[in-house]
């Protein structure tokens, strides 16, 4: 690419600036559910502008290949967007992250081949950015597919710890730096392929030790990487719109990563080093629980709810596993018809990716203004008659506030224990992911309702109708 491209004022660059502005405004409109859909369309328009400007402003040859790529890509994209179940959104995002990273790496490869064929030598900064592009892109590709495999259950969700993995990782890092220096000194395909191979291996090695429950953090981070890989490609080609759009995605992924690690009470380093929850089984099964609990039946729960004035539902991923979203919404509608105030308290880690539970409930026609996040709802529990916890556990454990020895100490939780009464729907007495017993179960105000969530909610609904 012409190195003066960055600064030349022509129709192409003006078009790219317009595209960049549309991307930013589009993201800004994601600030509220009311404007979000139009924001997404603005971003799509921005993409169209960027593509048209590129096609019209450059003398592109070999159309048959390009059109083939456009058609195949569009069909796969459209098909997966239409078919994917909302519960599987994390998998889709993981795979798309991977494709984004792969695209950046392949563009870097093609550009390197073109520069080598030109025979004019390659500037140092271009060599370095080509390597950045292929390394970040390669790590994103394989890392995303391992994350996909873990989310889908194809690869064991248990953290897999190789004995000398730190030595291997350091060796791979050194290999990357060495191959970059190599490419600067000797612009040929070999060092590039070495770096690509290292990046692909590293992507697998960094994600494989991470436990299944930490995947929300991993896909948020890989989301960021796919953007950074795009920005690196922008450096290679001297193209501002790539740099800007890539950076926006990079920033977005980093923010979400931070939100998720905070909500899980972990540091990013702690997640990436992996191995959390390896001793799950032993920690939970070690001591036999003998304290008494109160167990109730659906008809008791129906009574409690029908005579309440305010109810908060606390959904966790167990709700989605039981596919009980629609049943919960029906119950909520019934309660609202009786003049009872109904809201939903959504913890950031309630789903399997940031905001996942909100999408699952929106799909079940729960209005978004009833979905409250941690900060909005936590003050409300003390003024609430009944909190109904469905398939959530660790995020309601009050020992996170008080017990300094607990592994979840300091984790932000929903103040469910402050409600007047708590109905806890659960399959059994098992501990949550963190392997600690939930103190909430043993409070006097807590009623345990054992069984399948979907089934229990249906029974409660029909009991209330019969009252």
């Amino acid at each position, binding site marked *: 690419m012409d190195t003066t491209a*960055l*600064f030349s004022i022509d129709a192409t660059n003006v078009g790219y600036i317009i595209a960049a502005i549309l991307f*930013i405004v589009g*993201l*800004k409109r*994601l600030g*509220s*559910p009311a404007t*979000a859909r139009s924001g*997404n369309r603005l971003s*799509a328009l921005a*993409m169209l502008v960027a593509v048209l400007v590129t096609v019209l402003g*450059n003398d592109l040859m*070999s159309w048959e*290949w390009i059109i*083939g790529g*456009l058609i*195949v*890509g*569009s069909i*796969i994209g*459209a098909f997966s*967007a239409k078919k994917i179940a909302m519960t599987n959104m994390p998998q*889709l*995002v993981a795979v798309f992250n991977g494709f*984004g990273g792969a*695209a950046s790496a*392949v*563009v870097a490869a*093609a*550009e390197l*081949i*073109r520069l080598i*064929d030109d025979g004019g030598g390659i*500037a140092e900064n271009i060599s370095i950015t080509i390597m950045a592009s292929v390394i970040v892109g390669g790590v994103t590709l394989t890392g995303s597919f391992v994350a996909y495999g873990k989310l889908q259950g194809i690869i064991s969700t248990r953290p897999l710890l190789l004995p000398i993995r730190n030595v291997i990782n350091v060796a791979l890092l050194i290999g990357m730096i060495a191959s970059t220096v190599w490419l600067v000194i000797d612009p040929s395909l070999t060092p590039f392929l070495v770096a690509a191979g290292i990046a692909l291996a590293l992507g697998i090695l960094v994600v494989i030790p991470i436990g299944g429950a930490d995947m929300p953090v991993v896909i948020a981070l890989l*989301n960021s990487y796919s*953007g950074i890989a*795009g920005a690196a*490609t922008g*450096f290679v080609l001297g*193209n501002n719109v*790539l*740099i*800007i*759009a890539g*950076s926006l*995605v990079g*920033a*977005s992924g980093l923010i*979400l990563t931070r939100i998720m690690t905070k909500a899980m009470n972990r540091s990013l380093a702690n997640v990436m080093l992996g191995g959390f929850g390896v001793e799950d089984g032993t920690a939970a099964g070690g001591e036999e629980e003998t304290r008494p609990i109160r167990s109730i039946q659906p008809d008791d729960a129906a009574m409690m709810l029908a005579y309440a004035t305010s109810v908060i539902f606390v959904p966790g991923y167990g709700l989605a596993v039981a596919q009980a979203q629609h049943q919960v919404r029906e119950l909520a509608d019934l309660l609202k018809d009786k003049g009872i105030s109904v809201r939903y308290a959504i913890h950031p880690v309630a*789903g399997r990716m*940031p*905001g*996942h539970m*909100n*999408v699952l409930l929106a799909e079940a*026609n729960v*209005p*978004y*203004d009833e979905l409250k996040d941690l900060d909005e709802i936590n003050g409300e529990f003390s003024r609430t008659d009944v909190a109904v916890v469905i398939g959530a556990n660790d995020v309601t454990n009050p020992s996170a506030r008080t017990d300094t020895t607990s592994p979840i100490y300091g984790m932000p939780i929903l103040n469910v224990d402050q409600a007047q009464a708590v109905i806890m729907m659960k399959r059994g007495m098992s501990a949550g992911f963190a392997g600690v017993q939930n103190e909430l179960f043993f409070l006097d105000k807590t009623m345990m309702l054992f069984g399948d969530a979907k089934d229990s909610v249906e029974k409660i609904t029909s009991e209330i109708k019969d009252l």
Partner: protein
Amino acid sequence: MTDTQVLITALTVFVLAIFIGYEVITKVPPTLHTPLMSGSNAISGIVIVGALLVAGQAEGITGQILGAIAVGLAMINVVGGFMVTDRMLKMFKRSGDK
């Protein structure tokens, strides 16, 4: 412009864009974080621009094939990302909207 000047300009754009991204995206409410992620999948498909350039300017068949693969991969993100985001956002309704 020298290579260094080009690099500095690109870095300036990069850093400023990160700051804008940070400011804009911290204002996205948690309820929209999944659409934000799928939407940013779509936006990271911007690498389609790079893919078109390398595909269209490649002289050898290797470059053309690589370019076409990159175009295809980026297009999956663009089309899939925007469509699935729209599908999700369509489901978000206020009370009484039904």
